[in-house]
């Protein structure tokens, strides 16, 4: 295993800059997930670490050695590709053993190591098959075996699970984590699936449009999103957003409708007059009889999730989602009250989208109910 330092790395294709000044320190043996939508630059960043893309500016160092000018094979990284990239004309055994063959390892030793690794991923019986004869999940495992056998310092994963069906994905997720723990490599995993990121990561890196929005453990990112983007991207069902202005006098955020959402007085005092976006997670709100809550909305429809229900309510021209465990039968149009506890409120600046306070309000301030 090795630590990876990414310092002020930029990537441009001609005049098109796709990665803008990224800084990241990855510790030895960490499992880092880079999360973001398509086109955010996460795969590009991964490929720069691997050596498949050139680095336009900045530095990447693996185990304290700057690798900018090193060829992929000299960096000690192994990569699992999105479409597995298995050699179609070679058997599973030959696929797995290819890197060893290139390195000149003796045949006997090579075959032994291949057999070993293959059985560790459950492919022991498939050594003579060709990739074309394997299922998606099996191909995925061959791709992983091919990476594992090199005993690399760094494991790179480029959205390896996106081509699998839902059930298999969950299974393979756990496989990957198990292998990481067993081999004790440093892993960098790229995905657009926030659930995957939350499950697998030691630390999560959320990227958008070529910049890192936030780095932290999954719970940190979930509890304290650094921007509306992160708040809206992480967590399912997604966070609700309302626009308003901070008012010191009433210690609340005043919405355009006139309703007020209570926040800690000290916070209101510090940011009086600021235009903000309020973020509240569906599970943090509660439905109450109309008139008794922070604001009133109208019931629209309900999504049955099995483990709970997602109620969609119309407020002004917005839809707010509330996650609740109970099962109420409501007719569309019924007025419903929403209780929004001050502790559940995330405050973001309306212009920049950035979090207004660095720390959760509930911890710092005494909050009136």
């Amino acid at each position, binding site marked *: 295993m090795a630590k990876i330092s990414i310092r002020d790395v930029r990537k441009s294709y001609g005049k098109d800059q796709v990665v803008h000044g990224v800084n990241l320190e990855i510790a030895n043996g960490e499992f880092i997930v880079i999360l973001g939508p398509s086109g955010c630059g996460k795969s590009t960043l991964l490929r720069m670490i691997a*050596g*498949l893309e*050139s680095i336009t500016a900045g530095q990447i160092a693996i185990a304290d050695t700057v690798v900018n000018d090193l*060829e*992929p094979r000299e960096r000690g990284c192994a990569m699992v590709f999105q479409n597995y990239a298995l050699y179609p004309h070679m058997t599973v055994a030959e696929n797995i053993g290819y890197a060893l063959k290139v390195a000149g390892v003796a045949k006997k030793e090579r075959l032994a190591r291949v057999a070993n690794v293959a059985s560790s991923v459950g492919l022991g019986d498939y050594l003579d098959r060709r990739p074309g004869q394997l299922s998606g999940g099996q191909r995925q495992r061959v791709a992983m075996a091919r990476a594992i056998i090199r005993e690399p310092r760094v494991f790179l994963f480029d959205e390896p699970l996106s081509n699998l069906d839902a059930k298999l994905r969950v299974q393979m997720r756990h496989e990957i984590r198990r292998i990481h723990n067993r081999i004790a490599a440093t892993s960098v995993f790229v995905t657009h699936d926030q659930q995957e990121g939350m499950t697998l990561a030691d630390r999560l890196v959320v990227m958008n449009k070529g910049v890192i929005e936030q780095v932290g453990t999954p719970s940190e990112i979930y509890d304290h999103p650094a921007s509306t983007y992160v708040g809206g991207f992480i967590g399912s069902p997604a966070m609700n957003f309302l626009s308003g202005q901070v008012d010191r006098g009433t210690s609340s955020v005043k919405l355009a409708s006139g309703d007020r959402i209570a926040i800690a007085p000290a916070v209101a005092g510090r940011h009086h007059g600021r235009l903000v976006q309020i973020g509240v997670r569906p599970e943090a709100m509660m439905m109450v009889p109309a008139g008794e809550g922070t604001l009133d909305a109208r019931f629209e429809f309900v999504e049955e999730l099995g483990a709970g229900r997602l109620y969609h309510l119309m407020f002004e021209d917005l839809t707010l989602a509330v996650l609740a465990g109970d099962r109420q039968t409501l007719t569309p149009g019924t007025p419903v009250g929403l209780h929004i506890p001050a502790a559940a409120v995330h405050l973001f600046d309306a212009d920049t989208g950035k979090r207004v306070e660095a720390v959760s309000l509930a911890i710092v301030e005494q909050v009136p109910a």
Partner: protein
Amino acid sequence: MIERTPALNIATHAILLFGLLLLLIPMWIIFVAATHDLQTVNTAPIEFLPGDQLLVNIAEAWARSDFATKFLNTFIVAFGVVLGKITLAAMTAFGIVFFNHRLRMPIFWLVFITLMLPLEVRIVPTYAVAANALTPFQTILDVTGISWLIQQVSGVEVALEWNLLNSYTGLILPLVATATGTFLYRQFFLTIPDELVEAAKMDGAGPLRFLWQILIPLSRTNIAALATIMFVYSWNQYLWPLLVITDRANYGMVVVELSNLIPDAITTGGGVPTWHLAMAANLLVMIPPILVVIFMQRWFVRGLINTDK
């Protein structure tokens, strides 16, 4: 991509340039020869730099060989072949893909076999057919005794004749008689989803309307590809026009004309070889297909690969 080491890049460029030069040098020599006058072109050693006689030579070659008529003829034949091929191949492919009858496979094989034997291998009998295109039918009638019957009944002797020599039809038809385009279309038609056919049927479209209003517009790229390679193919025809056209003045084709320009004892009457004219003519003849290939490169390559595989 990976490994943009300077050394490897230089080696790559060197190899590619070398290959390119090998391919281009003959053409450069031709071009240079076409730009000099009679004397210079025959003096050894040859010039490597172009002269200034290009237009003069072209003009003279044009006039001498009456290229105006011949270019026109070649264009006519080329367009005829292209049109014929595009239409016929589409129709045949349509007939074997979108209908379900027992003869589908036999017809497919019948057409397929024609791929195996190019024209050059069957020139002698094909020429005989061109002399009288209705011979096969005549023979069938004779053999089955029908012509004897007709003669007995009406006193008319059945002697079918349709001479295709020295005609555009004679030039075009045999070139259309191969399976090339049919497989291109067939491959493509097989990828048309069933739902499209079913939707058309539900909308009340019959087969012909489906072909014309839905399939053909979808096949545009394939048509372009096929047209490109067929144009080049028919423009470059040599052996067949050589045989079928004796009336060079009216029906001569451009490429065939080149054989007349070979500077040997016959064409120059024993004089100095007119290489400059021959090369100028060569250039003229080469240009249209080269232009087509360069400007329609993508279609041309696609057409080649899809038809030959």
